[in-house]
């Protein structure tokens, strides 16, 4: 307010509007970083594609209450092998929060292209952290898919483990099912769609470990 006015709380000279604005913006930054338990704002080096981001924002629409004292996370996959649209992709996720949080809900969202008629038998393996290459990764889940489009595949939240670096690697393997229900041999013909808009992602619900939970886990 005017230069002559006094601060209503402490009686000192009131701040000039500009100075008050700068102070409030600084306070806002500190309040938000403290509320998110961050020491500084994240540096986004590889933002996900805008199309995939808008899908995620729709899925996590604010206003619906986040889990009490918990977080919902959407982590987009980076496929590591060249054949990005076959069913034998390796999906890599960066999830450093898995080290410090309890994971209690996990789903893998995949977009399946329109495929020849028939059911697709999909198996999801996880290359366990620290395991030597060449050994079979652990089978996490099996699903049967019989329609194109998005599929939310439930994963055992207890089975999903991150490596020290926070990396989670999921190996997909899918085969068309023959009429007698056995998996057809030969190279997988079905195609996953991992293009920008349809990039596979993990949808997780996590909450911080309660104090003392480590003791029970260790025991």
């Amino acid at each position, binding site marked *: 307010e005017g230069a002559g006015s006094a601060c209503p709380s402490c009686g000192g000279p009131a701040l000039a509007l500009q100075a008050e604005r700068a102070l409030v*913006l600084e306070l806002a930054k500190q309040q938000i970083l403290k509320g998110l338990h961050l020491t500084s*704002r994240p540096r986004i080096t590889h933002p996900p594609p805008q199309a995939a981001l808008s899908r995620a924002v729709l899925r*996590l629409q604010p206003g619906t209450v986040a889990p009490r004292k918990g977080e919902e996370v959407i982590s987009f996959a980076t496929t590591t092998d060249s054949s990005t649209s076959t069913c034998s992709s390796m999906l890599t996720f960066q999830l450093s929060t898995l080290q410090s949080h309890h994971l209690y809900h996990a789903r893998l969202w995949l977009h399946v292209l329109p495929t020849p008629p028939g059911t697709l038998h999909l198996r999801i393996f996880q290359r366990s952290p620290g395991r030597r290459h060449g050994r079979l990764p652990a089978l996490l889940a099996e699903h049967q898919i019989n329609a194109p489009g998005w599929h939310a595949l439930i994963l055992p939240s207890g089975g999903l483990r991150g490596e020290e670096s926070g990396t989670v690697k999921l190996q997909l393997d899918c085969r068309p099912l023959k009429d007698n229900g056995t998996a057809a041999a030969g190279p997988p013909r079905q195609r996953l769609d991992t293009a920008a808009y349809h990039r596979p992602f993990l949808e997780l619900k996590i909450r911080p470990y309660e104090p003392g939970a480590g003791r029970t886990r260790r025991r």
Partner: protein
Amino acid sequence: TPICEPETLLCCRRDYYVDFQELGWRDWILQPEGYQLNYCSGQCPPHLAGSPGIAASFHSTVFNLLKANNPSPAGTSCCVPTARRPLSLLYLDGNGNVVKTDVPDMVVEACGCS
């Protein structure tokens, strides 16, 4: 709680909207576009001590104690938040993951005299 007007001297809530664009943070905070950084300011003379701005019972208790014990108390009463609500944020973490979380007690809804 009265909303602070320029001439308000007594305890009130000052509403302040902060746009994340103005912080230069719209690249990592996806939703909402900003939030109310309200704060409490103003004086709390003795007859207002204990008036929490939203309910009178606490105020009358304190006021009666003041009258009974000492009409001019040594301590002072301060204008403080008496009700706050969480803020739901959707943001990108350092790995490019989308995180949704509720930050508790982020928005001051009511002010009162301690």
